[in-house]
């Protein structure tokens, strides 16, 4: 009944996420201080390591590419009213699909192989999301739990493929043979050199542009098409959807399939962009971080891209930081990620109530 005053746009979408982030950093800073290091120095090293020079920027955006895909994946399911925490498994199976497609194409033209590989990644990712979605839509199985289970099943399946049928002939590691020559996405620095700009070599590749395209497509799909409209209606109110002749189970399944396809496409960056073969557990938790990216990005593609760059910076800067400071390891970066997810995702209301009060007092003073 209480009249809820909405925060102004900038407070809701910029100030609030910044405060959440700040809180995560303050706690992380305390930990760093406890480890006997200077948190402010650590922060400056982290920023320097993420944005300070061309190679760093390249790596930051390389990692960000993964997060854009997984963040968009979590977000589209969220718009349809579902929580897909199976991004990790969908990415694994997407990678598997990509690899199978590439090997299936054999010595065909690399361009065609890449194209089919991309389709393979999306289709396999979508298929892996389809089953939990179907079970949710038709049998009422809670999608959160089924997607968790599917992450484990995917991981075991991938492990089986990589020590079995797909293992590099004669190899001992859980990895596939290398992709055929030339089946790789062009690096950005190569692209830039075509147009006469020189940029430090790095892993950043065309999949970043594909990710941007997906972000734009995500926006267009959700806010400019009938499908997106129906998806959002279904996500907001099942009753209103029925009223408008929209099938909620159908929307659940379709949204989850798009979600799985996006998560599956993460493999473009990691496998087709950098590793050029399939690796066990190449997903490295990117699927889970996608949840934080979606939350911090306020489920809007612009926000998601920004949040993805933030997490990319945290990855890249964190790696540099671990190199520079002896007591800090990459594990600490994982902890900071966890804290960011905690403050930005789970405790997003923590600052909202006080902010609301502040703005209300402001408003009433103005009224006086």
């Amino acid at each position, binding site marked *: *009944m209480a*009249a809820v005053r909405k925060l102004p746009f900038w407070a809701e979408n910029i100030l609030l996420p910044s405060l959440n982030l700040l809180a995560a950093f303050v706690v992380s800073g305390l930990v760093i201080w406890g480890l006997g290091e200077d948190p402010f120095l650590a922060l400056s090293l982290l920023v320097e390591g993420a944005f300070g020079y061309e190679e760093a920027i390249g790596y930051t955006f390389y990692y960000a590419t993964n997060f854009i895909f997984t963040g968009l994946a979590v977000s589209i399911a969220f718009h349809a009213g579902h929580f897909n925490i199976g991004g990790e498994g969908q990415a694994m199976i997407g990678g598997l699909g990509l690899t199978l497609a590439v090997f299936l194409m054999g010595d065909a033209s690399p361009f065609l192989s890449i194209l089919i590989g991309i389709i393979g990644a999306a289709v396999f990712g979508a298929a892996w999301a389809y089953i939990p979605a179907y079970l949710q839509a038709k049998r009422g199985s809670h999608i959160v739990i089924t997607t968790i289970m599917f992450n484990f099943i995917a991981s075991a399946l991938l492990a089986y493929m990589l020590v079995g049928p797909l293992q590099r002939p004669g190899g001992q590691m859980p990895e596939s043979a290398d992709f055929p020559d030339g089946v790789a996405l062009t690096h950005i620095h190569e692209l830039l050199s075509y147009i006469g700009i020189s940029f430090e070599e790095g892993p950043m590749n065309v999949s970043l542009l594909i990710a941007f395209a997906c972000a734009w497509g995500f926006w267009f799909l959700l806010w400019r*098409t009938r499908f997106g*409209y129906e998806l959002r209606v279904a996500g*907001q109110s099942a009753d209103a959807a*029925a009223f408008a*002749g929209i099938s909620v189970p159908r929307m659940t399944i379709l949204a989850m399939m798009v979600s799985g396809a996006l998560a599956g496409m993460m493999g473009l960056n990691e496998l087709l962009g950098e590793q050029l073969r399939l690796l066990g557990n190449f997903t490295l938790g990117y699927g889970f971080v996608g949840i934080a990216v979606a939350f911090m990005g306020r489920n809007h593609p612009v926000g998601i891209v920004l949040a993805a760059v933030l997490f990319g910076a945290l990855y890249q800067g964190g790696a540099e930081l671990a190199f520079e400071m002896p007591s800090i390891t990459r594990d600490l970066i994982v902890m900071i990620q966890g804290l960011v997810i905690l403050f930005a995702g789970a405790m997003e209301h923590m600052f909202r109530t006080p902010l609301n009060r502040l703005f209300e007092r402001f408003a009433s003073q103005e009224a006086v």
Partner: protein
Amino acid sequence: MSDLLAIETRELSKRFGEVRANDAINLQVKAGTVHGIVGENGAGKSTLLKMLFGFYQPDNGDILIDGDFVHLANPSGAMDHGVGMVHQHFMLVEPFTVLENIMLGAEGGRNLEEGKARARAALTDLEEKFGFDLPLDEPVENLPVGVRQRAEILKALYKGAKTLILDEPTAVLTPQECDQLFELVKLLRAQGNTVLFVTHKLHEIMAITDDVTVIRAGKLIATRKTSETSAADLAELMVGAKVSRQVSREDKTNRQSRLELKNVSAFNGQGHAALKGVSLQVKDGEVLGIAGVAGNGQTELLEVITGLRRISDGSIEFSGLTIADKSTVTDPITLRQKGMAHVAEDRLKTGVVESMSAKENIMLGYQTEDEFVSIGVLKLKNIEARAGACFETQDVRPRNIDLPIGSFSGGNQQKIVIARELAQSPQLMVIGQPTRGVDIGAVTKIHDQITELRNDGKALLVVSADLDELLAISDRIAVMCEGEITGVMRVEDADEKTLGLMMAGQKIDTSKGLAGNAPSEPSTAPTGGSL
């Protein structure tokens, strides 16, 4: 009956944000009486109750129980003072047995088994005293609504309630269950208890209470002895000087049938029979009103007509086409394309998407129209133009199509919804609760629009819990009770007493009607929802 006060409030006030839900309420409830509280939805009844049993704390004012000032920090505080409440939505744990539910919060020690044995013994006495016969070991989820309510009442008595607050107790009951409840209330009074009976049904107030208090817009308007007042007086007090309006109606007869239901049966979400052989006809140029106590199949009736629920028997014809029978169900989009518009009964839950902007809501249900979309892409300009036009013709305020629809007032929301449906020039308009939660000004406009449509030769089917509304806008009124049509009568022949009997399940030979009998108990205001 002494003059001792069981409950008294002095200047009791509570506000939510800008809304004064309760404004300086001075209520006096005499011990050993049944005291009625009436008011329209949103008048502030629920807020008052919630303060009386400690769920809310007042911003201002005092509560006295048995003459003593009390501070009720929480519901158990109220319980300690002998005030128990039976909520409109029962506070029962579904998988628990009746016994477990009753003892929750008064278990009598850490050991559950011992507590259960003691509670069982104590309940046997109570049950005898008040004539209960409840299946103590049955999980509540298996019990019908009426029995659950008795479990709630027994729970309050078990916890030592001397004063019982019953919040809209009859809203979900069948007439038979209502009678049982009334007997129980009388018995409670005879045993020296005080009952605060909250309702918006005036005939209940007249039938059961000793005194009655009217609340309107957060203020206590009047307290009367029931024997010295009438339903008509109370109705006037409830809504404030009621404007009696005569809508100008052109005579439109012998038009063709637009909608026909033949022997339609359907199940509700729980799998119980909700419609039992319903036959109805709506002709062009007429308004058929559907009256009845909430929960007697009206919701399901709207759903089967608008393609939201499958029927199990019979058939539905619309514009001469069979749109539903045992094996077919036509989807809402096709129905809209064929010229059926639907104003949903529960606006916020079904009729709009609260968090979406007004302009996005303007295409809800019509999102496949060429006007709004081509090859899957939305035509934003057209959508905005349509929304703008709707705002203009309906005088919606504020004139901002980008605001979330949830931030408009109930009346403005309904105007937007009606405009949306009118824009497609439908042949038939199916309306559930046209003015629920709508301010008086908008009510007039909505009624005028309904009549205008009718005069324009369109067919309308209107379900409303507000009899006065139906009497004002309908050509014929059909009454539903327990999933059946208990009668259909022309509005000229209808009076509230006859309709009331039909609502209670009496089948009336409507060819003769009972016109001529003095109308006495106007029932007003829609049911459901509370503060």
